């Protein structure tokens, strides 16, 4: 018997799909902003901060980069309540993704900061800027420019990785696929459509980040 594709069987669930899509987009957007903020602070602390802070951030980065995201997510969602912190699925997903992207982007942005020529920093210092002013006005922007493509890739990796938040029943795009195929038994069609949606999201995100990059870093 040949399997007959029945995409029409998804139609009754279109609202579930749309909600899942919206959830994934918003979750990615929010955790990208907070994750890159964490990464910026982390990278600054790692390079311009006191040694104890730099070490602490280093430990955080290693911890996150050497453990699976799913375990980080479970730890936040199932583990933290034991410490008295009860979170909703959405909150847990957001926090886990922020922590995860924060660690990776700390390393990425740090590479950009460390590529700053020593003389450019000395020029800032010689103009009587504080270390913080040098970091903020002289170092960070060129650093971001240098690592923008790497950062954009990492953001997309995190967006695609966000599909595992369905494991704690956060109602994202993958959750929608799980839900629909459990109702209409159309696994192939459900996951196919959702895979396509992720692909579109990734392509769109890449285009947006590229446009943002040339907006932020105008130069001939």
């Amino acid at each position, binding site marked *: 018997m040949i399997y007959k594709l029945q995409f029409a069987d998804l139609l009754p669930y279109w609202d579930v799909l749309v909600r899942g899509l919206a959830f994934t987009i918003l979750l990615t957007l929010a955790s990208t902003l907070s994750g890159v903020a964490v990464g910026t602070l982390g990278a600054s602390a790692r390079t311009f901060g006191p040694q104890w802070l730099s070490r602490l951030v280093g430990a955080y980065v290693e911890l996150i980069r050497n453990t699976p995201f799913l375990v980080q997510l479970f730890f936040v969602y199932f583990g933290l309540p034991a410490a008295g912190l009860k979170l909703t699925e959405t909150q847990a997903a957001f926090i886990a993704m922020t922590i995860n992207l924060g660690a990776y982007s700390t390393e990425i942005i740090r590479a950009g900061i460390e590529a700053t020529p020593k*003389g450019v920093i000395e020029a800032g210092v010689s103009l*009587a800027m504080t270390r913080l002013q040098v970091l903020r006005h002289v170092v960070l922007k060129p650093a971001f420019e240098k690592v923008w493509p790497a950062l954009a890739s990492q953001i997309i990796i995190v967006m695609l990785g966000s599909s595992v938040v369905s494991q704690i029943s956060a109602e994202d795009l993958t959750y929608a696929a799980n839900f629909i195929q459990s109702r209409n038994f159309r696994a192939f069609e459900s996951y196919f459509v959702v895979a396509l949606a992720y692909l579109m999201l990734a392509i769109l995100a890449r285009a947006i980040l590229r446009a943002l990059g040339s907006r932020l870093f105008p130069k001939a």
Partner: protein
Amino acid sequence: MPLVSIVDVRKSFGSNEVLKGVSLPVERGDVVAIVGRSGSGKSTLLRCINGLESHDSGTITVDGLEVGGAATDMRVLRRQVGMIFQQFNLFPHLTALGNVMLAPRIVLKMGEREARDIALDMLAKVGLADKRDNYPSQLSGGQQQRVAIARALAMRPMALLCDEITSALDPELINEVLRVVETLASEGMTLMLVTHEMRFARDVGTKLVFMHQGRVHEEGPPKALFAAPQTLELQQFIGASRA
């Protein structure tokens, strides 16, 4: 009291003693040309004056403020002495105007309008008013170095420290930078210039300092020293740079 006073300054990097008791008074309006072989400690001396390096012993004061002194706010001191580098070190993400405006804005806390006016004045002074919107990557080396000079001048310093500021330039671009320095000198700016431009040192300098192995080996009026160096080392140095 000299504007910049350097008294018996010593500085080591590890076991390598680079400055072995350097003393040098610099009066207001002096143009001090510092020459000497590579490795003789010229850059280190300049960098100790604005605290990019810290000296181990001896005293450096700028306008009465002691470099590295417990009571000295180094940022107040650094406003008085600008520094120009061999490699220009412009901020790559800012235009020429942005480069010149930044420190007046965030260090001197000037308003946008005022900082802009001063920056445009300074760019005009170095002959680059028309390049204000160019990024460093769009400027020649000579133009970049002139922007760097404008950037330092915008802080209204009392003295400028110039460390081989034409050494990274193609020969045909050297003169446009030297002309700017010469103008500053004629306007009474206090200058300390590490340079390999011997003719410039002789013609524009009010004082020549020959550094050798971490010491001021010989000093005096440039024309006199060039005509009749007292030490064998300076004789050899001048001979070598003529060749």
